[in-house]
């Protein structure tokens, strides 16, 4: 039971691979779970990147036959699904897991067990989805899986989509609840809501979005699952079904989802701008309210994805106006960031470069957002490359750049090494130039009428040069990512151990060791104001004042049960997919469910009280 106890004492010694593996399989520590999220997310990010390159190679020249049309459909579907659900979200959840508890002065999250369950559900859900490549073909109905295309798609591709996302989505929902309760109940003494760093604030609001958005996806996936696997008629028009229901449910989830992707990086950028301008963030309060407003409005705009469905002019107008309203709080944020830099002593390192590069990129994405929100014009833009360009400007220019910025900024805290600055600059410039080359030209391809999701385009229609430039840009982006990976490996092998506070930071996470001990602080710090570390640097002795004398620390126990539960659901997922072929697969379905339920039962009847790290042990360790 006491796996975690011995951890600190053996830390310095080299451990066998088996021990490390077992440690990660049973861990409930927020930082190790963050590692799992980031490594898992990075793995799927590379997969999604390879899929993107296949798309761009196919569209390199007119009427290319690099891949078949059917395979192309699978690749575009998996590119979108992988990037959104298995790359961007998990890496963000990883950052939140690693940093948020450190920013509020907590020793761990509120439900460490659920946290571990969430990460394993994500990893096994992602693997389940990608197994489809090896067993009869991947899903091919687009990442949006519109019915009836998805209900009538032959083979098991879409079944894998349903089960994989169901697992990963359940894990995300747990994380959302977990973060909310952590932030509310586990802040250090003095850490009032209005003293929380903005990354914690955006984690909080993102978690609310997760809580209210993911259940709609869950239901949508269930309906699709029932139609495909059990002969239900939700989307079967012959039996009175209605395919628009899928679109509504998908986008009621899907639109908040894009804010789930962008809000955490808004928080990360706020930290970076403030730290590297050596200034308090401009308009702290307005930042929080702008975030809340974006989240609130984000729930009322989903139907702008469906303007051409035929909802009628009134519905279209309402959703169009609501969508445009979101530009206001977003604009407030952009101006606040600019004002933070203004008059500050700006340090242009790679983390800051990502942040500065983000502003024009994301603003272009926001501006085209207003364009596609204009109903009459959207009938032209709909399903063209203009839309592709728009959402890549927000998701790559916003989320991916934010992930790079956040990773560069917090790498020392998460992995104990500072990334190499030269390699960081190379990554930034290749990726930044490659990104604009790839996607800026696509606005014009779209305006010229190039539809999305088409396998080939014809010669001499004015699309040749644009597509060539776009494909070259994609390869530049790939170079940037590869340099980043080299950077990570290089500093791990050759880099020096990072200092506790390498950036002269302002917030609480920079007061722990890099990486922190699993109990984070020996004594919980007392928070005296916003940017609490900076406050101590200017008014105190540069160290946090402890909130209590040294005492025993209560920590949760590790457990293998989350992993077993997730494996059970994974097996049950396979059972669901294949029971339509052969009733023997019901064994897998019920067997997998039984494993998971049994693990839940064990968890329920076991007294898991956690363990204590005694005062004496803490004193024994060097300062």
């Amino acid at each position, binding site marked *: 039971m006491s796996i975690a106890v011995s951890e600190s004492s053996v830390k310095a010694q080299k451990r066998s691979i088996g021990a490390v593996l077992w440690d990660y399989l049973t861990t409930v520590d927020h930082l190790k779970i963050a590692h799992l999220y980031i490594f898992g997310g990075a793995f799927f990010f590379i997969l999604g990147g390879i899929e993107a390159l296949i798309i761009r190679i196919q569209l390199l020249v007119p009427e290319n036959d690099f891949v078949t049309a059917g395979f192309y459909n699978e690749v575009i579907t998996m590119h979108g699904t992988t990037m959104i659900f298995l790359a961007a979200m998990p890496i963000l959840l990883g950052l939140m897991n690693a940093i948020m508890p450190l920013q509020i002065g907590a020793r761990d999250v509120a439900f460490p067990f659920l946290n571990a369950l969430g990460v394993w559900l994500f990893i096994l859900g992602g693997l389940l989805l990608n197994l489809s490549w090896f067993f009869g073909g991947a899903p091919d109905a687009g990442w949006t899986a519109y019915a009836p295309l998805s209900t009538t798609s032959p083979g098991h591709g879409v079944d894998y989509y349903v089960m994989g996302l169901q697992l990963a989505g359940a894990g995300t929902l747990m994380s959302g609840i977990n973060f909310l309760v952590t932030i509310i109940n586990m802040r250090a003494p003095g850490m009032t809501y209005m003293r929380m760093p903005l990354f914690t604030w955006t984690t909080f609001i993102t978690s609310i979005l997760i809580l209210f*958005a993911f259940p709609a996806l869950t239901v949508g996936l269930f309906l699709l699952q029932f139609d495909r696997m059990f002969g239900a008629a939700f989307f079967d028009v012959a039996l009175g079904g209605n395919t628009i229901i899928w679109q509504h449910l998908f986008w009621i989830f899907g639109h908040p989802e894009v804010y789930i992707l962008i809000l955490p990086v808004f928080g990360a950028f706020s930290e970076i701008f403030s730290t590297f301008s050596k200034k308090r963030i401009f308009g702290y309060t307005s930042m929080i309210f702008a975030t809340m407003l974006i989240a609130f409005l984000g*729930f009322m705009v989903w139907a702008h994805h469906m303007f051409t*469905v035929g909802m009628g002019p009134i519905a279209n107008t309402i959703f169009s106006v609501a969508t445009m309203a979101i530009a206001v709080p977003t604009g407030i944020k952009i101006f606040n960031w600019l004002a933070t830099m203004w008059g500050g002593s700006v340090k242009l390192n790679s983390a800051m470069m990502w942040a500065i590069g983000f502003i024009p990129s994301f603003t272009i994405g926001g501006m085209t957002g207003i364009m596609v929100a204009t109903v009459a014009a959207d009938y032209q833009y709909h399903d063209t490359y203009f839309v592709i360009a728009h959402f890549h400007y927000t998701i790559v220019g916003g989320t991916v750049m934010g992930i790079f910025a956040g990773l560069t900024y917090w790498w020392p805290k998460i992995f104990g090494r500072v990334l190499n600055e030269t390699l960081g600059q190379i990554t930034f410039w290749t990726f930044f130039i490659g990104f604009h080359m790839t996607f800026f030209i696509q606005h014009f391809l779209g305006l010229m009428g190039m539809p999305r999701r088409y396998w080939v385009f014809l010669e001499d229609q004015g699309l040749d040069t644009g597509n060539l430039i776009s494909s070259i840009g994609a390869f530049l982006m790939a170079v940037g990512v590869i340099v980043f990976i080299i950077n990570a490996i290089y500093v791990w092998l050759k880099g020096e151990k990072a200092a506790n506070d390498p950036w002269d930071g302002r917030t609480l996470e920079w007061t722990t060791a890099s990486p922190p001990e699993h109990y984070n602080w020996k004594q919980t710090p007392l928070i005296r104001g916003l940017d609490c570390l900076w406050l101590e640097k200017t008014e105190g002795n540069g160290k946090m004042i402890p909130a209590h004398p040294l005492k025993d620390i209560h920590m949760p126990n590790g457990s293998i049960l989350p992993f077993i539960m997730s494996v059970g659901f994974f097996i049950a997922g396979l059972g669901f997919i294949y029971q339509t072929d052969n009733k023997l697969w019901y064994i897998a379905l019920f067997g997998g469910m039984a494993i998971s339920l049994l693990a839940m039962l064990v968890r329920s009847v076991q007294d898991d009280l956690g363990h204590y790290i005694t005062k004496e042990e803490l004193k024994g360790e060097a300062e």
Partner: protein
Amino acid sequence: MTENTNTNQLTDYHKQKNKEEMKRNVISFALMIVSTIIAFAIVASGVMDRIFAVFLLFILATVQVAFQFFYFMHMKEKGHALPAVMIIGGTWAAFLTVFGLVAAVWW
């Protein structure tokens, strides 16, 4: 966390309070049963106009659910601000969802 357990022991004061609380809960249960009976009676008798009946049914359901939340689930008590915020937020998202699926479905 609970070092102050001893000062927190069950007193007659708390027992009395719990009792009064329970009495209120029984009253709200009675009101819930009454509103259920009214709802079923409206439908069974069929005396009411369709639109009006549906409207009334929803009001009765909402009242009943309010009793559940505020009395049975103690949402009226202190320390329930955040649960209330989340339930109201969920209800708002729920309203939008149902509204979208009912009003903006293309037939």
